[in-house]
């Protein structure tokens, strides 16, 4: 906080303060208000408007961890979870929802698609009825992975997270297929939730317990091999947020933090040349949106660097810093109008550039972008798989 020179660069890039005047911006809500919070003056609630996208931290020339300062303030305001609404609590447990929904996926999907059920959910839980909810996929990914014949190459871990486990099996399957094509044998050491939604809304006591059990699951695998993730926000949580928010600096947590990698970053660094050589043409006009959470990885845009190697692919880079959803932020009925305004930049670019499809690393962004644009929106690994095996894969 003391490194802040109040230069205001963070203000220039904050998508929430650009969208609404009510949010005074990261400089104020972060380091400036923190100076008062540390002396006990706390009647200031702007932190709750922050979406936690992390862009402020990524542009700060003085290494101020602005997002983390705001997240900690948010947790204090929420009194470690006691003041978190029931709807947000529900959103904070994507794996519980996933398990419930996947008992009878067709019924759950019917309810999610039903306008009256969504209206009811908005009234009861505050979950905005227009927010993009994914459909339940049953345990399709786990079953598929168990029965898949894999190469006998080096072992590598894959962390599917709630998204792939419960909703988005296609991304997980494409990830495994691409890794198999590179010779790896893939296993999934845990399908638990990383607890990020709890962290973002300040529900910390429950979040810490989950973090610890997930670390227990992943630590043995992390001792032997890299663990890759297709979810930029889950991997960022495992990589740096447990340490930053829960002071989890123990040996196991550190081992997991070191083992976890964004799948595109890992493939670019280790197999960039090989992939460039093997990629077959994919004749699509693709807009790539690097999700805000990817910035926290400090990798640049590895998926964009890989997509640039796919022959025939017309690549347009998103000019938007954030699609607005920022995890579960855009699901909250009260935050939805803000999220919509943040998302406007991306939608305007889509209208202007008219891509055939959109590629984005983060699941909640994909769901929301697909709903808003009506375009197909996939994880980069699906494009890589199409480029590696154009005949075998029907998609994209």
């Amino acid at each position, binding site marked *: 906080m003391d490194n802040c020179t109040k230069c*205001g660069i963070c*203000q*220039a890039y904050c998508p929430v*303060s650009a969208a609404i*005047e009510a949010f005074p911006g990261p400089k104020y809500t972060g380091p400036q208000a923190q100076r008062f919070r540390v002396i006990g003056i706390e009647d200031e609630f702007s932190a709750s408007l922050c979406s936690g996208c992390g862009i402020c931290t990524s542009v700060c*020339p*003085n290494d101020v961890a602005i997002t983390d300062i705001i997240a900690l303030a948010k947790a204090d305001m929420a009194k470690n979870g006691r003041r978190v609404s029931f709807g947000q609590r529900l959103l904070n447990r994507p794996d519980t929802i996933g398990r419930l929904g996947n008992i009878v996926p067709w019924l759950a999907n019917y309810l999610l698609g039903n306008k009256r059920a969504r209206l009811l959910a908005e009234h009861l839980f505050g979950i905005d009825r227009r927010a993009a909810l994914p459909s339940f996929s049953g345990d399709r990914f786990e079953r598929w992975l168990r029965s898949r014949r894999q190469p006998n190459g080096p072992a590598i871990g894959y962390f599917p997270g709630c998204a792939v486990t419960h909703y988005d099996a296609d991304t997980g399957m494409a990830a495994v297929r691409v890794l198999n094509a590179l010779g790896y044998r893939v296993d999934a050491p845990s399908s638990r939730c990383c607890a990020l939604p709890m962290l973002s809304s300040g529900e910390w006591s429950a979040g810490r317990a989950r973090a610890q059990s997930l670390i227990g699951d992943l630590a043995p695998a992390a001792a032997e091999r890299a663990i890759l993730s297709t979810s930029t926000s889950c991997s960022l949580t495992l990589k740096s947020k447990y340490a930053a928010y829960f002071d989890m600096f123990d040996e196991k947590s550190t081992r997991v933090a070191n083992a976890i990698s964004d799948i595109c970053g890992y493939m670019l660094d280790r197999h960039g040349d090989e992939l460039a050589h093997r990629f077959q043409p994919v004749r699509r006009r693709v807009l790539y949106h690097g999700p805000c959470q990817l910035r926290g*990885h*400090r990798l*640049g845009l590895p998926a964009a660097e890989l997509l640039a190697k796919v022959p025939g692919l017309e690549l347009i880079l998103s000019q938007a810093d954030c699609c607005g959803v920022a995890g579960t932020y855009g699901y909250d009925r009260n935050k939805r109008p803000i999220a919509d305004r943040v998302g406007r930049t991306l939608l305007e670019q889509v209208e202007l550039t008219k891509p055939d499809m959109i590629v984005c690393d983060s699941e909640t962004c994909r769901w929301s972008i697909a709903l808003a644009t009506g375009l197909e929106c996939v994880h980069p690994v699906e494009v890589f798989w199409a480029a590696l095996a154009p005949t075998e894969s029907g998609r994209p």
Partner: protein
Amino acid sequence: MKADVAIVGAELDGLVAAIRLAELGRNVAVIASAAGSLHYAAGGIHLLGYLRNGAGREEVVEPFAALARLDRSHPYSLAGAVRVREALNWSARLLSGDVGIAAGASECNELGLTPAGLRQPIWLPTAHQATIGRIDGRKTTIVRFDGHLDFPADLMLAGLKRSGIDAACIAVEPPGPHRDNPGIARNFDRMPDAATYFATIRQELPAGTEIVLMPAVLGLARHAEIVSAAQAALGMPIFEVPTLPPSVSGLRWTRSLETLLAAKSATIRKNVRIVHAERDGNRIRSISDENGRTIEAGAFVLATGGVLMGGLDVDAAGQVSETAFGLDVAQGRPLVAGSPSAILAALHCSGIETDDRLRPKLNGSGAIRNLFVTGRTLAHWHPAEEISAEGVSIVTGWMAAGCAHAVLEG
């Protein structure tokens, strides 16, 4: 990753080097840990505004003629007068588009303004930037926005009056709900009908106003369009005056340079901090970031923005260090004793000492042959005292590109 040239830092010097190298057909990668110091720039190119003279400084009227009076270790002296001109001619073309810097070089400085309304020499102002020459002798009205956080209008008014300008100030509603520089600029961009907005302002101008000055927030992507709409609606010239940071002029400039670079298929990695260089004798073979990812290249440019942007660090004992590669730092005076301005001068003049091809010296013996240091990370110049930030950045960035290109040619 492999590239012909890896450029560390997205400062003006790094972007200039990258664009020139890409134009020379080189495959470049720019790796930047955060936003660059263009976000603090007032707009236009400051070449050389002052020379140190005894305990004080004297104003420079003819910057090219004054180059000969700089110390031999100054970056302009390393470049030499011929290259300084060549670099600036090259860059004027580059900056004439969105940034609105008028092409065509002048031998003389004009007088621009600081955000506090003080006069400050500037070599090339942008087309819509206020200078004393553009407003002198005419009745001037500053139009400020109600509640604007980043613009001290009272200081600007007092400064103009001190300069003998017949000035007044009025406040108007901003173009949208925001009260900060980038917010106001974006609201101008989104405004469907700027002409009506400025027509309303015209009603409120004091009688006899001949020139309007507004804080430099008149649009980001649609700047030129908005200024011409304003001029038409007001029926008189309108110029921008600098604000406190973050500078919208700097944002426009950054956008324009990054767009140029992206169009040349350069790889840009943002939020990536370089922390190590792997050396092979007196050559750098590869560099690596905090995640341990390496970048191999034939040549490297270090454009990390000095103390201001974290390219140099100062510890509690006043010791200056270079943060990316741990290069030797030339540090004249200790940073702990003396007046604030003396400490600041010592701080600014600390940095990496190089030969006349911008190659850093290596433990006193020879130089690293494929690394070129630019901009604020260089020793022996004082951007704040000399008012020379953009000039030195452009000249050293341009030069580094030429040197890196030559190294790759063998």
